[in-house]
């Protein structure tokens, strides 16, 4: 007789998986016109409970399911960010999905399933577990991208994302199989132990790492695997874009950190130049390619590519300080991106969504509060002190300097100066251009609250940086010790 595996540490995931199936039943058996609001509310509640279970589970290093699943302070930190991103995405979508013909209860259910996949990614301690979590997440995202199935752009976005996602999964699997072939196991701890004993790293392992990084770089949309991002961001329904820009990025970044610092942590010298290049290229492309954009969703896509580049500086440094920097950066990125997308979701003229930057003209006169909030987010994205975004960049740049990556830090600083141009152009359009048609009032209380709270957090971060920084530092330590 064999014993049951340990399951306790995975309680939040198990709860979420069962609750999602319950949500589907509710959606099917409730009257169609009441299904969406009810399932949305329940989905938010379910995610919050899962978040509470994660927080209550604490951060001691625990393995479950025969070492396939790991929980530590790092996992708890990242999972709470992911849950926050998902909950906010559901709240933000409330008005949009009712108006734009995607009012099906499957939307919140799919978000929950994607969240489950992301939690599994963050806790993956094995190459197979990594892949299963990644696929669960990606498959849900492909479906949500094409949820407006009667609109050409939405289906095109979904199809593009699917085809390129399948390609990247193939690369990732090829890399994983090479690593398995040379390591003899798929479990991260055993891999780390095996590679630690080797005197020189075999070429096959490095090839495997390259493919693995390529697959994961696609998921965080880092250059040169960023091609899908602008099209998918532009084509997908706006609340879905808001979700894409936040939660999956955080989960994929967590996965990248765990893989690179875990099994391959001992051979930083072998892979650091790959990350160095990806990081520098993402920052430069994010800065220059965004300049000619006129559509704000495309602009946000390039902006997110740039932000991933800045975050990856911390990984290129390969130190505890670098990991701390990434965690802080991703948390701040979450807040300012959610705020910006809440503003984009409120860009509506006479019941019709608008997405051009020129539509924002004169916003300061027609809607001063929203203009002020967007001003705060844009300053923060550009990294202008005293906004939160400045501190995110400060932490990763400091890690780079301490790791003697001077070139990368200089490239980063220059790229952020260039990117400040297009962020500030939005501010200029809002404050100094002749007013265009006024926007409709912000339609739901949820959106208003998100804009307000995100604005306050971005502004007030300077007074309480240690709240985030201390937790991030503890999480980084737990990742490197695990």
């Amino acid at each position, binding site marked *: 007789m*064999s014993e049951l*595996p340990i399951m306790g540490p*995975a309680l939040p995931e198990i709860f979420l*998986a069962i609750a999602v*199936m319950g949500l*589907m039943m509710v959606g099917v058996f409730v009257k169609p016109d009441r299904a969406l609001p009810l399932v949305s509310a329940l989905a938010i509640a379910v995610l919050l409970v899962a978040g509470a279970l994660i927080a209550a589970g604490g951060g001691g290093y625990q393995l*479950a*399911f*025969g070492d*396939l*699943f790991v929980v530590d302070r790092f996992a708890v930190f990242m999972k709470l960010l992911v849950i926050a991103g998902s909950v906010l995405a559901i709240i933000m979508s409330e008005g949009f999905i009712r108006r734009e013909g995607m009012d*099906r209860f*499957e939307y919140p*259910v*799919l978000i929950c*399933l994607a969240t*489950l*996949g992301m939690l*599994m990614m963050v806790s993956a301690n094995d190459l*197979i*577990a990594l892949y*299963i*979590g990644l*696929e*669960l997440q990606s*498959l*849900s995202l*492909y*479906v949500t991208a*094409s*949820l407006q*199935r009667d609109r050409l752009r939405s289906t095109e976005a979904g199809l593009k994302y699917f085809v390129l996602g399948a390609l990247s999964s193939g690369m990732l699997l090829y890399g994983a199989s090479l690593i398995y*072939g*040379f390591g*003899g*196991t*798929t*479990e991260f701890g*055993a891999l780390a132990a095996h590679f630690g004993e080797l005197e020189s790293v*075999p*070429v*096959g392992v490095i090839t495997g790492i390259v493919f693995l990084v390529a697959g994961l770089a696609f998921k965080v949309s880092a250059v040169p695997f960023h091609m899908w991002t602008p099209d998918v961001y532009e084509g997908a329904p706006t609340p879905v874009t808001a979700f894409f820009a936040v939660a999956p990025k955080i989960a994929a970044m967590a996965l990248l950190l765990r893989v690179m610092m875990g099994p391959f942590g001992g051979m930083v010298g072998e892979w650091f130049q790959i990350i160095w290049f990806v990081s520098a290229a993402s920052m430069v492309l994010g800065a220059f390619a965004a300049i000619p954009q006129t559509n704000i969703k495309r602009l946000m896509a390039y902006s997110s590519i740039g932000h991933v580049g800045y975050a990856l500086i911390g990984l290129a440094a390969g130190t505890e300080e670098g990991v701390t920097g990434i965690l802080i950066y991703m948390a701040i990125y979450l807040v300012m991106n959610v705020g910006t997308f809440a503003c984009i979701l409120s860009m509506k003229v006479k019941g019709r969504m608008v997405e051009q930057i020129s539509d924002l003209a004169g916003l300061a006169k027609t809607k001063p509060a929203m203009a002020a909030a967007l001003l705060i987010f844009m300053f923060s994205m550009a990294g202008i002190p005293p906004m939160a975004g400045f501190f995110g960049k400060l932490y990763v740049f400091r890690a780079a300097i301490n790791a003697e990556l001077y070139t990368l830090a200089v490239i980063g600083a220059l790229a952020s100066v260039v990117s400040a141009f297009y962020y500030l152009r939005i501010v200029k359009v809002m404050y100094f251009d002749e007013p265009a048609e006024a926007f409709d009032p912000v339609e739901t209380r949820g959106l208003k609250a998100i804009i307000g709270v995100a604005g306050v957090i971005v502004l007030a971060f300077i007074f309480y940086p240690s709240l985030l920084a201390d937790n991030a530092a503890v999480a980084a330590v737990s990742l490197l010790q695990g």
Partner: protein
Amino acid sequence: MAIATLCFYVFAAILVACGAMVITARNPVHSVLFLILAFFNAAGLFVLIGAEFLAMILVVVYVGAVAVLFLFVVMMLDINFRDMRKGAKRYAGVGAAIGIVLLAEILLVVGTWQLDPGLSGAGAAPTPAIADMHNTRALGNLIYTEYVYLFQGAGMVLLVAMMGAIVLTLRQREGVKRQRIADQVARSSKDEVRKVNVSSGSGI
């Protein structure tokens, strides 16, 4: 042993021949039939190496379900395979050239790798000897006990796939007449049947 070796060569030869026939047969129905024969021979090979469970699964799942599904699809869709071949012939030369270059490159790269001799026994889940445990049980142990997390995770992935297919394709069309069995059964004859006395010669 001699019989086992003979069986191996017979199964293997038929398998390879069938594989070739699947892609060269002009009639797509014949292709599928050769595919079924290939599955049976592969199952025979599995039995020879002592993997009787996999052999059974191959016959049940691939012959019983997948190949028959192929057969239905091939018969139902009116695909003109001759036209599809035309395009293939045009690109065959370039495709083959690229393929050969790629193969040569991969051989050059992989040929220089040296595998660690101690690696063959280092697998994470070495299979137990056939004498200790029959392979249905060994597979069950692996899938439902050791890797139960992955098994459940894969189940969630399939759930998403099913949901996605329904969300993206199911439409409630207006004006379609459907049979509602519950309504039909619930109707009583009192409401629907009327007895009319028709006097002869006058009509209704």
